[in-house]
């Protein structure tokens, strides 16, 4: 019977080249870590065939469990699994501590910023951030002015995107503070790894990720309207046709909360109720996975079929809490991003723990000129979008594409920012019969009620194509389990 050719099997990573990029596993620029070394050693002893077989088993299981994205066509629903890679992404304990501190600092500053802009607007008066950028922002919600959310918390759930550059330094890429998704994959990926890679996990001191649901429920309870002792918490989903529906199900289950759709809720006398078989039951905290614009056809988009008429009135009356608050989108705007270090200093009197990426705000004439002249070296992104939509990666674009984008920029400069192209770190993935490097990012999740807590784990999203910098799942990216070392 044919076996793998060499008598003493070659290392799994033989021939693996990271091409000068920082590699999360094999090329850490001399920052040795015993846990990461151990994982590398154990992996090296495996064969690609073994890995492939395990990957196949995992895929079948994910498919059967319905841990899938659903792509609907006119006649049928196609379920796709989020591509899952079995080689874990490991983060050393000390690295994580610093990351956690930096992310919580940002979330704290953003919550104070949101309170400020919806109340006294001191940062605007003090010139810390341009008035127009905030008040003219399409995600700034006039309707929120003067409203006091419980605990002063606007951003209950944050999914901060972080990347590493070629030196191994962590940089914040985006603050996702509207309805960030992906946490279900963090927990499901871990469960899957425990089943298919138990020999890799043995004896490692991994921080657990399973308590996320309970923590989420706790903070949603903390921010329930005043005077409610045993709040009814629900998760509001756009419904089974939403591509993130699996995650909504997952979180509702983990929290022990009811998953509702807009049609299950009704507002009466500025109070929110759900339709049950025993009649209307009051609801106190809503973890909503619907954008601001679709929440309430009376207050926002009148054509929304997903929302609940009167919901915003009930919210303003303080009878129900929405998580995240309405109007947080101004805080994760890509132009506001450039000011976050200043906001941290202004509100907290501290230096930022984590670096950000040099950002040119195209609304400013100099930055626009610079961007137009250097587009072949820049990433240009629309300020209010997420999910990797509407952006251009200059060096990967054709001259024609760049010219077309320049035209868009000139027509609507304030809709764009530009940043240098980062040399994102890479991580090895199993790709057919070989191990090859792919760029990777990191999305930890931070929960805030009375205080903040960061899940010691994260979504590591990998680009599927070699050399690609786009990791978004909506653009075909995959994920892998992220191991945060507890010691």
């Amino acid at each position, binding site marked *: 019977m044919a076996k793998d050719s060499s008598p003493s099997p070659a290392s799994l990573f033989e021939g693996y080249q990271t091409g000068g990029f920082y590699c999360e596993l094999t090329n850490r620029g001399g920052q040795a870590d015993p846990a990461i070394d151990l994982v590398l050693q154990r992996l090296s002893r495996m064969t690609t065939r073994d890995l492939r077989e395990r990957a196949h088993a995992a895929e079948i299981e994910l498919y*059967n*469990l*319905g841990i899938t994205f659903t792509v609907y066509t006119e006649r049928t629903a196609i379920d796709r699994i989020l591509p899952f890679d079995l080689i874990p992404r490991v983060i050393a304990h000390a690295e994580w501590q610093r990351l956690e501190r930096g992310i919580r600092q940002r979330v704290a500053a953003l919550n104070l910023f949101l309170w400020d802009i919806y109340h006294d607007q001191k940062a605007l008066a003090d010139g810390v951030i341009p008035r127009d950028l905030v008040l003219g922002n399409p995600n700034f919600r006039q309707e929120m002015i003067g409203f006091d959310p419980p605990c002063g918390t606007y951003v209950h759930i944050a999914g901060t995107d972080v990347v590493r550059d070629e030196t191994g330094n962590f940089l914040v890429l985006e603050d996702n503070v509207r309805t960030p998704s992906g946490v279900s994959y963090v927990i499901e990926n871990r469960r899957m790894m425990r089943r298919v890679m138990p020999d890799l996990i043995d004896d490692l001191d991994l921080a657990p990720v399973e308590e996320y649901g309970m923590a989420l429920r706790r903070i949603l309870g903390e921010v329930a309207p005043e005077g409610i002792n045993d709040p009814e918490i629900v998760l509001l989903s756009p419904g089974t046709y939403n591509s993130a529906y699996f995650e909504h199900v997952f979180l509702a289950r983990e929290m022990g909360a*009811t998953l509702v759709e807009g049609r299950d809720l009704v507002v009466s006398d500025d109070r929110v109720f759900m*339709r*049950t*078989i025993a009649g209307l*039951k009051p609801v106190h905290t809503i973890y909503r996975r619907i954008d601001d614009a679709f929440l309430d056809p009376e207050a926002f988009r009148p054509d929304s079929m997903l929302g609940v008429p009167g919901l915003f009135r009930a919210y303003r009356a303080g009878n129900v809490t929405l998580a995240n608050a309405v109007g947080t989108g101004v805080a994760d705007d890509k132009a506001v991003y450039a000011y976050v270090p200043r906001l941290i200093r202004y509100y907290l009197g501290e230096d930022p723990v984590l670096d950000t990426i040099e950002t040119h705000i195209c609304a400013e004439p100099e930055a626009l000129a610079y961007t137009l002249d250097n587009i072949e070296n820049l990433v240009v992104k629309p300020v209010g979008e997420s999910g990797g939509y509407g952006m251009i990666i200059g060096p990967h674009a054709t001259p024609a594409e760049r010219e077309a984008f320049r035209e868009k920029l000139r027509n609507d400069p304030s809709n764009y920012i530009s940043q240098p192209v980062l040399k994102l770190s890479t991580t090895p993935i199993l790709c057919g019969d070989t191990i090859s490097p792919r760029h990777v990012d990191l999305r930890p999740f931070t929960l805030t009620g009375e205080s903040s807590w960061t899940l010691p784990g994260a979504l590591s999203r990998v680009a599927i194509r070699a050399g690609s910098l786009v990791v978004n799942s909506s653009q075909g990216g995959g994920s892998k389990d992220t191991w945060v070392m507890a010691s």
Partner: protein
Amino acid sequence: MTPADGRFAVTPLLSRYAENMVWLARYMERIENLARLIDVNETFVRLRTVVNGWRCIIDINTDAENYLARHAEIEGAEVASFYILERDNPNSILSMALAARENARALRPLIPMEMWTQLNVFTNFIRSLTSSDISANQISLLCARIKEACQTHAGITEGTLYRDQAWLFHQIGKHLERGDQVTRLIDIKYQALLPNPEAIGTEIDLSQWTAVLRSAAGYHAFRRLVPNDISPAAVIGFLLKSRGFPRSLATSLRQAHHAAHLLRSDYRLRGAGRVLERIENLQAVLNGITTDEIIITGLHEFLDGIQGELAAAHNVLAEVFWPAA
């Protein structure tokens, strides 16, 4: 009392979930029974004991118009395709499996993972079928496999679904559907012999009644209870009125009644009273007439009437528990 003492608060059940539960159970039960009907029809055709071949199954499901819109003639492979594979037929096993799965998808926050996984795997299996899987020699095997998947659903549900209101709605849906389907199974026999009343009591007639009993998994029980008779009245009586046979109309009504009763008594849902009333009316109708009387006054009309009453019971359930907003 605390959870540690085994006492847990009742969690509210969304109206939408109750509706999905009933439909999930109904679709799975309907799929199982359709597989049984296809199987028995195939047996009839194979035995050449049938007057109008594959036409009966189309007639008892009142699908003639729908079928003839798509198919030129009534022929085995095409009828099997119509009832198993065709997405354009809302009553095909494929369409119903997808509908069951959509209901289950909406219920995922509520039902155990094992229930969902089995349904997901089952639906993917049905979706993978092609016309070569339903060639004449394989229909019976395929029906057996489909039946078994539905029974697996019932078993996993019984073994894993938490016993609260959601379970009771699943039970009501299942038994209303099963009651409806047993009347259709009897009807297929009636339709098979329709143009040929002289055949009643002949050998062909008996072998058909045997096939009906077998398809309902009731043959051996019937033999044990009625060792020396297989008269139409005895078989019909068994299928409609037996208190012990799990697929009889009487058993289905009793089970549905029991579940609705628990909704009222254990969960204080007073509206369940209206459902109980409808089921009790049906039970009174069934108990107030002998099988011979049913046959004399018109079996088909009686079965039609029962189907109408079962639909009415479903409608009352909907009005009470998931009223239109």
